[in-house]
């Protein structure tokens, strides 16, 4: 058990968490970043990013995140790859423990856990995982060259994968689900004109089937679609029960409720990035990370004056 008390502990090392770590460590706040998965978060899956300022020719997700990691480390942030399993709020002190047995204390916390993948939960999904059912269009798309695939999901990432897969696949079915796309994304208009892409809207998938590999999907309107692969690109807010233990409020969808200063309803606990369901862009995540860091540092300073 570490007796050390950090000024700020950041949970999550994606764009929001690494930006927060850069800000707090640069201002000499003792900072620890804990990441249960790969440093860089979901941005690592971005093959090429063209809308992050400062990179007019674009940059790959892994390269951008490596730079963010280096920048946070340069100013003294510590980064540990440990999964947080418990958080407790004792007022002026926050405590947390990790799956590997780590125990840490901090004056303030910034939650930047991002979003994780969600399953579709239909018949056949588990059976054909890795045999036509995939959860990463960029990772597994190359195996479906000249084949027919469906991209399931109504978020921006799903739509992005529709565009990516249409470059190499023979045909792409875009299936956002009954609720449709979460907003009128700018690329939708262009994709709707692409003859290789067919949008199947207002319906949900009820079954994924085949013999050894995926061969078809069934829809709740009774139709069956023959294809070779199903990419399930649905997101899940990675808040889980650990936030409830600390008393941090979320909405019905699991998004952490944070105000314009990224404050949650618990003093000293802040939230930034996709886990607060705002923006869902790298640039908005870094902005929220910076705002959370500035307000966490203000909070720590106020504690010292007590």
């Amino acid at each position, binding site marked *: 058990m570490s007796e050390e008390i950090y000024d700020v502990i950041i949970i999550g090392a994606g764009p929001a968490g690494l930006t927060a770590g850069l800000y707090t460590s640069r201002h000499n706040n003792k900072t620890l970043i804990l990441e249960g998965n790969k440093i860089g978060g979901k941005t690592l899956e971005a093959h090429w990013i063209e809308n992050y300022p400062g990179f007019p020719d674009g940059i790959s997700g892994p390269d951008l995140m490596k730079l963010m990691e280096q920048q946070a480390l340069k100013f003294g942030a510590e980064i540990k790859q440990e999964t947080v399993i418990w958080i407790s709020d004792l007022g002026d002190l926050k405590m947390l423990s990790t799956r590997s047995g780590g125990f840490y204390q901090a004056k303030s916390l910034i939650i930047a856990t991002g979003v994780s993948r969600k399953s579709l939960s239909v018949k056949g999904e588990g059976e054909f995982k890795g*045999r036509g059912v995939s959860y990463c269009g960029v990772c597994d798309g190359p195996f479906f*060259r000249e084949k027919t695939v469906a991209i399931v999901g109504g978020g921006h990432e799903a739509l992005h994968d529709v565009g990516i897969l249409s470059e190499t696949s023979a045909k792409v079915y875009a299936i956002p689900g009954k609720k449709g796309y979460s907003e009128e994304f700018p690329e939708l208009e262009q994709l709707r004109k692409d003859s290789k892409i067919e949008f199947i809207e207002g319906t949900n998938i009820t079954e994924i089937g085949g013999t050894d590999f995926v061969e078809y999907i069934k829809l709740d309107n009774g139709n069956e679609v023959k294809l070779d692969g199903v990419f399930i690109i649905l997101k899940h807010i990675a808040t889980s029960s650990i936030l409830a233990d600390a008393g941090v409020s979320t909405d019905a969808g699991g998004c952490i409720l944070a105000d314009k200063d990224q404050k949650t309803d618990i003093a000293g606990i802040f939230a930034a990035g996709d886990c607060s369901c705002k923006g869902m862009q790298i640039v908005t995540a870094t902005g929220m990370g910076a705002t959370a860091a500035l307000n966490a540092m203000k909070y720590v300073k106020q504690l010292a004056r007590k």
Partner: protein
Amino acid sequence: MRIELFFSPVCPYCPHARELLKQYQQDNPGFEYAEVDTFTEAGIERGMSLQVMAVPCLVVDDNIKLSGWPFTAEDIAKAIQ
């Protein structure tokens, strides 16, 4: 025995799978091990010839054993046995 690990540079589960395989190789020497990058033409062709459809993918003597989700050390030990 020949073991191949198919990975992609953008796959979130692949780095961990590679680390686990390297550890397994250290603990259990005596087999041939190759990592196949599916972002290369040769890698994707090799993968498609074996009907690999998702990464990370563990292939033992041309047979797919694990594919497309996070591996554990136990999964690997069981798959290779």
